[in-house]
């Protein structure tokens, strides 16, 4: 396949940045999208030009590092996958592919396509945990039976990989799917109920302070989420938050 890539290049956080065109040829449809970028980078390096920086690590869709906005969609046109699982067979020979970083004020660009997502970490520091010591001196695991449906729903919420596609896809750069998933995971489990009130208040407060936008329920996040995290989690967070705020 022969393609034209339009890629956002930005030397560092203070640089203005611009879109640059790169023609690329001899791409196999069996390559992953990132392997295609590897080919481009290898060519750039051997030509003495600066390679394109992008975040990636596990390349199997679970670490949540990769983060490209491809042809106007987070993780590209395919569904329920991350960019590293996107394969070139999804594109047509001769196509022009636009590649941009996640765009959100809370995710500033570090370089080229690499953005700073530590805002997500800070939201978790504010309450994304259950306050038990890790000494192992707790009750037997089976002493806390959990309804299977609740356990499964908690698991589904917990499969979030923290990639930020929800924020990137949202027209408001809202982080509510991410926060909703974490709040839901704990709200659904008996172990998490003890601190539910403070958790949701603290996490939402931090989310707001980070400068994410407001959810307007467009549902784009759910569609683009590589793990298919459901909007139900946002509704659950809204409930949890409102009852917590009314209590407090």
């Amino acid at each position, binding site marked *: 396949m022969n393609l034209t890539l*339009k890629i956002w290049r930005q030397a560092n956080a203070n640089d203005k940045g611009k879109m640059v065109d790169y023609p690329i040829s001899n791409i196999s449809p069996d390559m992953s999208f990132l392997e295609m970028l590897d080919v481009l980078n290898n060519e750039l390096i051997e030509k003495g030009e600066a390679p394109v920086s992008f975040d990636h690590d596990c390349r199997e869709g679970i670490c949540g590092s990769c983060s490209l906005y491809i042809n106007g*969609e987070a993780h590209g046109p395919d569904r329920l996958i991350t960019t590293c699982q996107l394969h070139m067979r999804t594109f047509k020979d001769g196509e022009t592919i636009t590649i941009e970083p996640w765009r*959100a004020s809370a995710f500033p660009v570090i370089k080229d396509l690499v953005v700073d997502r530590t805002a997500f970490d800070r939201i978790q520091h504010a309450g994304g945990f259950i306050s038990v010591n890790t000494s192992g001196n707790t009750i037997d695991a089976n002493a806390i039976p959990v309804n299977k449906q609740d356990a499964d729903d908690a698991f589904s919420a917990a499969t979030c990989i923290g990639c930020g596609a929800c924020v990137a896809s949202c027209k408001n750069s809202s982080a509510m799917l991410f926060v909703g998933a974490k709040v839901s995971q704990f709200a659904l489990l008996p172990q998490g109920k003890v601190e539910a009130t403070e958790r949701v208040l603290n996490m939402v407060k931090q989310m707001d302070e980070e*400068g994410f936008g407001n959810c307007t329920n467009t549902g*784009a996040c759910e569609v683009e989420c590589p793990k298919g995290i459901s909007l139900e989690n946002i509704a659950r967070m809204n*409930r949890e938050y409102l009852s917590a705020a009314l209590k*407090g």
Partner: protein
Amino acid sequence: MSGILNSSIGRKFAMALSALFLMIFILQHFAINILSVFSPDAFNEASHFMGTFWAVQYLLQPVLILGVIFHFVMGFVLEIRNNKARAISYAKNNGAANSSWMSRNMIWSGGFILVFLIIHFIDFWIPEINTKYIVGDMSGTLPSGEFRYHEELVHKFKDLWRVALYCVGFVFLSLHLLHGFNSAFQSIGANNKYTKGLKGFSKIYAIGVPVGFIFIAVYHFLNH
């Protein structure tokens, strides 16, 4: 409780509550207006009651006006904040791939509805207030002694421009509600086994009520 409006979820919630309130009002408004098609007398009775009953005039009316203002102001505030959350926009964005046009353009549909409402106020509400509270005529009757409401309504819909404005206004209302109705329920945290049924109902409401209003306008335009 304090500061709830300073949080993103609190604002969403307030937006949803005001929306639900406005939707109830629209339904009520529609219920009375549709009477004009079937029974001018019933329409007159209802209009007179609404126009003169103290609780409606001095309690509901101000609350409604505040609700409208709140919903719009909050809508614009949220829009500005949301725009700030993405300082640099995408060179290429394919929003249609993951969300409906209606959900992405609430500010536009809302904006047109606001324009419509302003005209509607100037056109209807201000003369009404003038008659009742400035001139001081609370009788609700024409010199002939008959109720004036139906007659005035029919008269208004003689003009093509007004009918056209009505139609456009309600098309935007429909687009606004097609997303907004469900969205309000999601915002107040109702996403459960009833959600599917609610979605169906919301479609009926979002299309049925505006079409009904348009029908009333067109009906009177064609019949008189």
